[in-house]
């Protein structure tokens, strides 16, 4: 699993590097309508605690991915 993620990451990195090489600036077209991200999900307290605990580890292990301080205090 970890290996696959790494390989995919490397492949993606190469592709992105190639894309970046030909176009110094990429214009991101602003959509006419605001982007709707429906996040009105009901989360049971018990489930939330479980996910929170796992996320603590994930955030702490990948500070560069989440841009949060190393102390991991995001609660």
């Amino acid at each position, binding site marked *: 699993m970890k290996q696959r993620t790494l390989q995919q990451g490397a492949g993606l990195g190469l592709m992105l590097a190639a894309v*970046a090489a030909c*176009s110094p600036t990429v214009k*991101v077209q602003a959509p006419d309508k605001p982007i709707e*991200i429906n996040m009105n999900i009901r989360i049971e307290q018990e489930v939330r605690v479980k*996910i929170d605990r796992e996320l603590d580890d994930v*955030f702490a292990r990948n500070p560069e*991915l989440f*841009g*949060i301080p190393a102390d991991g205090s995001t609660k």
Partner: protein
Amino acid sequence: MMMKRIFAILALVAMTLGAGIGPTMAQADLTAAKSQGLVGERPDGLVGFVADQVPADVRAMVERINAERKAQYQEVAQRTGQKLAQVQAVAGDRLVQATPSGQFVMNAAGRWVKK
């Protein structure tokens, strides 16, 4: 008078271009891009573009980060036996809360707001 107006327009165009493209960073940094107001945290636990125009390296960085974040969320979903959308919602909530004031976060309606 006419010359003055032309200069003013030229200056404005130059400023707009400068602001749109931004400084070219050798390697884009998430924290820097966020503090520059180019990108922000979304309620689904991913990063999104706040600005209409972003430098290619920032765009590449955001895509890489989102792909890696998704993989992490997927693993959490598997470990906890919960739905991916729920993991993303909890992560998004925490990341939006952790965002320092002055930076952009996306609200539930999909609009960027400055914290």
